[in-house]
């Protein structure tokens, strides 16, 4: 089975989600080719993409401000029309991954399956697994018809492992003329400053929700996260309310985290949130509503007021030095 992985990079290296997909893909190609597809220049990426199992890298070259969704999809379509058609294209469940697969699905007239956490290959049959209802239920769906099949996978669905492969060969896959669909342009890029460990890589995550009552109380979450050398996170409710930036959001539409310890403060445990954190090894929840769904998955649950428990906890940790 020939597989492509839509490879994304940040700060000049492939994202962890990209390496996870390459690792999974190389185990199921069964002797077929594993190719990475990069929207941009791949010169600096060929080494690490090869190390994780890709033998070839298609690269569009600089996108010149075009949005990746429409541009990369068109470049993929051109390669497929040129005769190199994969059986499966795996996408990270990311903004750009979703956009590229959406555009391509219409161009190829193929369905998309998103939010997957597993992939199974049985001969020519391909199926993927998706959690629904907050992760309580797992649905396995098989692709029907003919490929290329298009599937997006949540971060941390697979564990990235090096294959000690040689650098992949880079093949140009230029973006064809896009017409009206390609007229949007990125004119400026803004990066939000973050301190401490990254939310999706931190060993400890402390998240706050609506139970904090008001935006200024989020300081307690930041203090506690700092004391524990962890990262602060947030529920969608307080991100929507504008208390903290979107980059803090844990959940279905935010980051998926799997820390050693997750501390949920004033978070009731909406499906949307639980999907993003129930993979944590240990979960501590503080909430004043004892019926809150978060207690259903907590290893330690404190039914109490975050405005009382958090200051006491912070003080106790501070006094330990």
């Amino acid at each position, binding site marked *: 089975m020939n597989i492509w992985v839509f490879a994304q990079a940040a700060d000049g290296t492939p994202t962890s989600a990209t390496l996870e997909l390459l690792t999974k893909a190389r185990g199921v190609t069964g002797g077929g080719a594993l190719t990475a597809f990069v929207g941009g220049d791949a010169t600096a990426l060929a080494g690490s993409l090869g190390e994780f199992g890709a033998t070839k890298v298609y690269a569009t070259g600089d996108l010149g401000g075009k949005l990746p969704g429409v541009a990369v999809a068109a470049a993929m379509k051109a390669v497929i029309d040129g005769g190199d058609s994969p059986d499966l294209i795996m996408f990270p469940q990311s903004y750009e991954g979703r956009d590229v697969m959406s555009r391509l*699905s219409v161009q190829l007239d193929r369905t998309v399956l998103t939010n997957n956490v597993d992939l199974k290959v049985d001969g020519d049959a391909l199926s993927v697994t998706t959690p629904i209802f907050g992760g309580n239920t797992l649905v396995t769906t*098989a692709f029907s018809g003919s490929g290329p099949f298009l599937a997006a996978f949540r971060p941390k669905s697979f564990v990235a492992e090096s294959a000690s492969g040689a650098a992949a060969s880079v093949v140009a896959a230029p973006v064809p003329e896009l017409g009206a669909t390609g*007229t949007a342009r990125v004119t*400026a890029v803004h990066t939000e400053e973050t301190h401490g460990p990254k939310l999706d890589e931190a060993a400890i995550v402390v998240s706050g929700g609506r139970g904090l009552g008001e935006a200024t109380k989020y300081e307690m979450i930041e203090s506690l996260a700092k004391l524990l050398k962890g990262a602060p996170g947030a529920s969608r409710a307080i991100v929507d309310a504008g208390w903290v930036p979107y980059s803090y959001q844990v959940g279905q539409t935010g980051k998926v985290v799997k820390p050693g310890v997750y501390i949920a403060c004033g978070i009731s445990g909406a499906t949307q949130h639980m999907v993003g954190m129930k993979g944590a090894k240990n979960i501590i929840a503080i909430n004043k509503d*004892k019926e809150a769904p978060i207690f259903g998955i907590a290893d330690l649950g404190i039914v109490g007021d975050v405005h009382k428990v958090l200051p006491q906890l912070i003080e106790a940790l501070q006094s330990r030095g």
Partner: protein
Amino acid sequence: MNVIVCVKQIPDPATPGALNADNTLKREGKLILDESDGYGVEMALQLVDGAGGGEVSLVSMAPNGEVSGMRTALAMGAAKGTLISDPALQGTDALTTAKVLAAAIQKMGGADLIIAATESSDGYTGTVPEQLAEALGLPSVTFAKRVTVDGQSLKVDRQTESGYDEVTCPLPAVISVTAGVVEPRYPSFKGIMAAKSKPIDTVTASDLGVTPVGWAGAGQTIVNVAQAEARAAGEIIEDDGEGYAKIVAFLENLKVI
């Protein structure tokens, strides 16, 4: 400026979801306006207001003729709506949904701007806005967290993994808006009364010439539904003033402090 907002009517997320025998989501009874779509409706109303003319129309797809969610958006201030309702739509995948919506939007005469949420709260495939743009041959900007219209062009702050990008895009275009982009208004009593008599045009998928739809058009088959491994129940205690000490002891036991 005319804006079409794609709205989804979903089972109330506050009630536990359930599956039909064919593994589609149970969508019987009253459906409500997806909370995520309130932002798009509000943004559309504000943009039309700012442009000094035009109207906001709705397009929605539902298998059972349900309009109560659409009425909520009409009560907020949208002028009219088109509902594609057809029992054959049961089991329709995201790609066919986008084709159906595209055909309906063309039948409605198109618009300067088409707005959708980034993903629905029930199915959350998250691909329909961009698929819709491709089906209509339009440019698109997904994950918009701030939108302004400058003549015949949009200026959008687009959410990214590390911050945001400023993007310009000529109209007509499709955008998907994140939650929190604007504060959706509550329908007024007057709005609710007026919504009752606002027109909703109901069409079927075959009226629009989109076939096949439903399971027949979906390039997928559900092969298994299983319960995920449940987490073992933990220790839940009422805070008696010493709850924090329990947390300290728990963290000590894990050797993280």
